[in-house]
């Protein structure tokens, strides 16, 4: 998915294929990527495979899940399964577009302010700090509700334009530390130009940070989009999981006992969020190997006890006699 695309797009080229394989070999990352891939596929084919037009009214009103309607129907007889399926596209679109917008901005602001330093750098850094402390969601709600028309595009842009600050800050810190690395100095001493240093020496080393920031923003964007739809600020932008929840809420689905109206969309959100979080864990562990689970964590000693591997108390497996000489 897009995480990989980012990795491939940057000239990180092949920080040894082995390293990337290690990322994919991480069970968390793999689970996340597979889930994410599934959602991406649904985003593409969802509208085609949806059994019904999500807005189409049917004869079965407020029916629970059944063979015909897997997730049941709404008060108008609309098929909730189709709504969730069709809604995936909007969710993925907004999430990823906002992620891309925010990531591009954060890279621009973060890396520039980190590398350049001086007044400009400080100014950019102050700017991102300002955006950081201003509560994002209320801001997004206010901006979105002030838009004359809300489409997925405008929502994605609003979210993207307001949520880059966190990543910019992280990137700036990273860049500041990279800037002092010897290899950057060495490239400078070799006579590389500034933009080449930023692009080819610093940026590739930020890939993981950028990717992780991207994934984080996607999570935030997805939740924000759903929130906006749920509180009715952007219901007009078409079907997404938030719209489904909005209708469920406005028809008092829970009071009516129509759990099927709430649960699938909510679970889909949680699942997508989990998938993205898992990918992020994968990236974290990829960057900082200490966090990795590291295989087995408990050992059987010779006298049959099981001990946990832990800092400060190295387990002892056996005694001198129990061990055969290794080749």
């Amino acid at each position, binding site marked *: 998915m897009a995480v990989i695309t980012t990795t491939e797009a940057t000239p990180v080229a092949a920080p040894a294929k082995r390293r990337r394989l290690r990322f994919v070999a991480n069970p968390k990352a793999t689970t996340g990527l597979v889930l994410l891939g599934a959602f991406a596929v649904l985003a593409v084919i969802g509208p085609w495979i949806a059994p019904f037009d999500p807005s189409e009214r049917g004869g079965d009103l407020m029916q629970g899940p059944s063979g015909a309607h897997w997730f049941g129907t709404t008060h108008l007889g609309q098929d909730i399964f189709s709504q969730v399926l069709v809604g995936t596209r909007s969710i993925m679109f907004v999430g990823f577009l906002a992620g891309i917008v925010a990531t591009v901005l954060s890279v621009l602001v973060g890396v520039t302010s980190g590398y350049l330093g001086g007044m400009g750098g400080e100014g950019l850094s102050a700017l991102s700090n300002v955006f950081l402390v201003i*509560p994002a969601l209320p801001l997004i709600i*206010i901006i979105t509700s002030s838009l004359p028309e809300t489409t997925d595009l405008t929502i994605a842009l609003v979210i993207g334009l307001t949520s880059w600050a966190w990543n910019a800050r992280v990137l700036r810190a990273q860049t500041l530390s990279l800037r002092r690395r010897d290899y950057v100095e060495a490239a400078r001493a070799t006579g590389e130009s500034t933009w080449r240093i930023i692009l080819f020496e610093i940026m590739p080393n930020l890939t993981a940070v950028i990717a992780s920031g991207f994934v984080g923003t996607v999570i935030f964007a997805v939740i924000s989009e759903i929130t906006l739809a*749920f509180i009715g600020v952007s219901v007009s932008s078409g079907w997404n999981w938030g719209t489904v929840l909005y209708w469920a809420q406005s028809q008092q689905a*829970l009071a009516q006992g129509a759990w099927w109206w709430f649960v699938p969309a909510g679970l889909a959100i949680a699942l997508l969020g989990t998938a993205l979080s898992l990918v992020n864990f994968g990236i974290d562990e990829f960057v900082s190997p200490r966090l990795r689970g590291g295989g087995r964590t408990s050992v059987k000693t010779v006298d049959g006890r099981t001990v946990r591997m832990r800092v400060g108390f190295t387990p002892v497996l056996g005694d001198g006699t129990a061990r055969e000489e290794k080749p």
Partner: protein
Amino acid sequence: MSYLLKRIAFYLFTAWAAITINFFIPRLMPGDPVQALITRARGQMTTDAVQSLYVLFGLDKDESVVEQYFRYLGQLARGDLGMSFTFFPTPVAEVIGDGLPWTVGLVGFTTVLGFLLGTAAGTLVGWRRGSLADLLIPVTTFLSSIPYFWLGLLAIALLTGPDSFFPATGAYDTSLVPGFDLEFIGSVVQHGILPAATILISSMAGWVLSMRNMMVTVASEDYVTVAHAKGLPERRVMVGYAARNALLPNVSGFALSLGFIVGGTLLVEIVFSYPGLGLLLFQAVGAQDYPLMQGIFLVITLSVLLANFLADLAYLALDPRTRREG
């Protein structure tokens, strides 16, 4: 000291930026409050009422944006946030004054508690890495991926009802008059449990994870090994050495993510009809109540700034390296 001064300067600047953003965004809105009121009334208001409303709200006057901005700044300086349109002619400050204590109580309390509990749980999970406690991680990941409001809806669906102990809406029993009596406080607690639990569960998860990661990272620092080597009791090593240091990035992370958290928690107020700023903001947006919206946004932002500043102070107290003598 200089660190503090710098932070204060930064907060002042941010406050100004927030005030300005806050002013301009609602101005760009296309609708006007009278129309919003009409649409809200939906047939309950005759067309004749419209003109009277324009007159009432003083929207028949023309004033340039710059003039409005400076008038706004001047009023702010006097603590005057204007009059709410929805609750005309109640001053915004008064409307917010009604909602703020609830938000501070619910959101403030739960955010801090969530941080503390999450940090404590993360400490344990990170310390006892490889034990059953690790099972908490997938659970918390999942929980932290659920939007606050959905969790709240589930809680309402599953736990409230005619015979339930948990009320689904409000901040206290409607039959009570607020006061410092046992019954009222009991009612507030009773009404607060579910929203608080919702916020706690979803906000704690993030802290558990980040604290766990920090613990895992810190646990392999030399000074922790030294602490073990010194034969210190386990508790002392875990709390005084590992957690104490792992806490530092978490505290600054806490300060930075306050903005995000508060945004999320406001939604819980909407779901639980908790009469705080979140619910007010929701209503104000719906009613195009510029002054109220501005006021709420401003108050939220300033509170977050203040909280940030407190977190900064906490960091200052926790990390001796930021304390410079002289």
